[in-house]
């Protein structure tokens, strides 16, 4: 590539990243170009690291970056040159077993591209090959499908064989080794799947243009995934992001002043300060206050309409109660019940947790639709004294009453008693107040924030809450 072509490609690349929600400014692009100049284009992995170092500003952006990078700076053009690519599915699967058992990454990569090459092609161009006239119409309808390739290779079904191959060398009666092999084999199958996806993206990008593929085929950043539509893997990813965020949330809610303005005089620091004024203590220094402990109360909607959000809510709640002891959690559907003890003893996955809460806590009256009026009412009746002048209350729910009583008075009573109350709503703000949503009425009593994805949550935590 000439220098000008490299620059043009970098600018395109930066634009694609921006399109995926990664803020890459002109300054970063200039830095990246400078880095490329210093480093050259000889080694692709180094180029990847160099661009990551100059263009990224957070580790959460890396997966998206990698996927877009593979599209814009492909390892090869056309079919990958795998050593002796296997002829058919059976042969490919056999080779895959040995590669998975050995954990040979290069071989896995080669097999992934061979798999996409032989099994993943769809549409009209396959037989005629690339090149030649009249393919313009065919192009839009053809490509390389990872789904189709994986459907035939079925790497998951190979797990048994892989395990057998891995344990062949080990002696009998090594349970720890077996457990480890099993975990490693699963991870490698996941890796192979990811390689196939990347390869299919790369091949299709050649056909359809990079920009289009970068926009549609690269999954969005985790922080932009909506809570209500997150898949199981995305939720697992979210958990990692939510962990540090929850800590920040709790400390902010326990807002305190860093410097005391009145109180006890700190003699040592006052005297040290007085040296600047010739020994006359003109500016007394006060003793620091002990840091406040978060006194937090969570009220979570667990109803069917916010099932996805409830998963997230539980993640957040669990993360919070992991880190702070003085947190009480309550769940509600038709009525409210305390779930602190259920969260405390649990280590399982959030899905099992949701089932346990519904089974063990008394939260439902008539099925899975939420009744905010009754829930707020039962909370105030049963646990009203849990809310004190130093308590922060966090309500998580969509404020859809299903036509029932809204009971704004109960919410007002909570708000009057607590230090502050915040409401996080998983619904788009433009939908608040439509249908059975009582969001505007509740929003008048307590501040309500839209909180559909991690980015919005971190915005709420860092910008809107006091602290």
């Amino acid at each position, binding site marked *: 590539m000439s220098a000008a072509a490299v620059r043009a490609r970098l600018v395109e690349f930066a634009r694609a990243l921006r399109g995926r929600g990664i803020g890459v400014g002109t*300054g*970063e692009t200039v830095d990246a170009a400078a880095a490329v100049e210093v*480093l050259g284009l000889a*080694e692709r992995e180094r180029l990847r690291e*160099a661009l990551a170092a100059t263009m990224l500003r957070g580790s959460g952006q890396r997966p998206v970056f990698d996927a877009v990078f593979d599209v814009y700076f492909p390892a090869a053009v056309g079919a990958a040159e795998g050593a002796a690519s296997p002829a058919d599915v059976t042969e490919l699967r056999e080779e895959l077993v040995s590669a998975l058992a050995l954990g040979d990454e290069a071989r896995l990569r080669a097999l992934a591209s061979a798999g996409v090459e032989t099994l993943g092609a769809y549409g009209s161009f396959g037989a005629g090959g690339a090149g030649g006239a009249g393919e313009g119409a065919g192009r839009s309808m053809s490509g390389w499908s990872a789904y189709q390739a994986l459907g035939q290779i079925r790497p998951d079904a190979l797990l048994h064989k892989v395990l057998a191959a891995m344990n062949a060398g080990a002696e009998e009666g090594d349970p720890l080794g077996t457990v*480890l092999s099993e975990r*490693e084999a699963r*991870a490698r199958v996941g890796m192979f799947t990811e390689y196939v996806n990347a390869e299919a993206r790369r091949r299709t990008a050649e056909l359809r243009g990079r920009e289009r593929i970068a926009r549609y085929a690269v999954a969005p950043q985790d922080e932009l995934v909506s809570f209500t539509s997150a898949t199981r893997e995305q939720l697992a990813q979210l958990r990692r992001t939510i962990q540090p965020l929850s800590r920040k949330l709790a400390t902010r809610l326990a807002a305190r002043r860093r410097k005391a303005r009145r109180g006890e005089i700190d003699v040592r620091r006052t005297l040290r300060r007085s040296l600047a004024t010739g*020994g006359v203590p003109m500016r007394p220094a006060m003793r620091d206050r002990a840091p406040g402990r978060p006194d937090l109360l969570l009220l979570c909607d667990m109803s069917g309409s916010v099932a996805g959000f409830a998963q997230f809510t539980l993640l957040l709640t669990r993360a919070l109660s992991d880190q702070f002891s003085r947190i009480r959690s309550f769940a509600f559907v038709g009525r409210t019940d305390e779930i602190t003890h259920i969260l405390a003893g649990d*280590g399982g996955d959030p899905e099992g947790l949701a089932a346990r809460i519904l089974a063990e806590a008394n939260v439902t009256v008539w099925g899975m639709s939420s009744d905010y009026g009754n829930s707020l009412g039962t909370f105030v009746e049963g646990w009203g004294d849990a809310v004190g002048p130093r308590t922060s209350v966090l309500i998580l729910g969509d404020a859809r009453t299903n036509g029932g009583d809204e009971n704004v008075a109960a919410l007002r009573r909570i708000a009057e008693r607590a230090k502050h109350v915040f409401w996080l709503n998983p619904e788009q703000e433009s939908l608040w107040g439509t249908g059975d949503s009582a969001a505007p009425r509740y929003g008048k009593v307590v501040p309500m924030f839209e909180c559909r994805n991690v980015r919005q949550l971190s915005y709420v935590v860092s910008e809107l809450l006091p602290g």
Partner: protein
Amino acid sequence: MADPLFTSVDDVARRLAEAGYLASTAVATTVFLADRLGKPLLVEGPAGVGKTELARALAAATGSGLVRLQCYEGIDESRALYEWNHAKQLLRITAAKGEAWEDTRDDVFAEEFLLPRPLLTAIRNPDPTVLLIDETDKADVEMEGLLLEVLGDFQVTVPELGTITAARRPFVVLTSNATRELSEALKRRCLFLHLDFPSAELERDIVALQVPGLDSTLAESLVRVVGALRELDLRKAPSIAESIDWARTLLALGADSLDEDTVRATLGVILKYQADHRKAVSELRLPAVLDAASP
């Protein structure tokens, strides 16, 4: 700008390895770029993956002095940049009874009474320096403003003395545990390096380098177990520091292979929470713990 410290990416990797730090491609490339582009390096990652160690190895590899600024909540200019030695100034004024005020005044704000703190020390040092600003995320936001000024132009203005410009740009390494987001402005001035847990091969090499006496098959299974533990979504996943500790423990115990009982008995070295301990025992299907071999 002074001569670059490294000639190529391979040179970085080789010299860091000589200093006892095995660098991945990401680390070597980013260090090389930071050196060539003259930009500070912001290293982010979980505790115990060798962020501070990288700075130390850099200093050793390039024969530079290491100046360390440890950040904490409430750190300010007088701790990070410079401070006037008030006591000494007062002494000087008291001693100069007969002198004219003009002379004393000029005299009191001279080099002699300046207490340089890490940032100023690093900037004034004519020899190659590695400036390590550790745990930047612990410092307050105001501190970042100060860092911007220093790291942007590598100069410091002391009102009484004038502007002090770096005789030789120090190699700056900032570390962060990502407990809070650093400001955009600061991040923009730095090259970003996310240090994560290393690949299995690299970790094996690191363990071999740090604990030379350990049997290689034992090291291999150790790395495998640690790798499996990291997949478990624990409260505190074991990092490189824990792997090395564990290797030392196994060496001290004279273990020759890593079976379930050894793992169970020494799990406390790598897992620091009771809940993590329980989870690891059940997920790795270790035999149930009867005695209290927990942390």
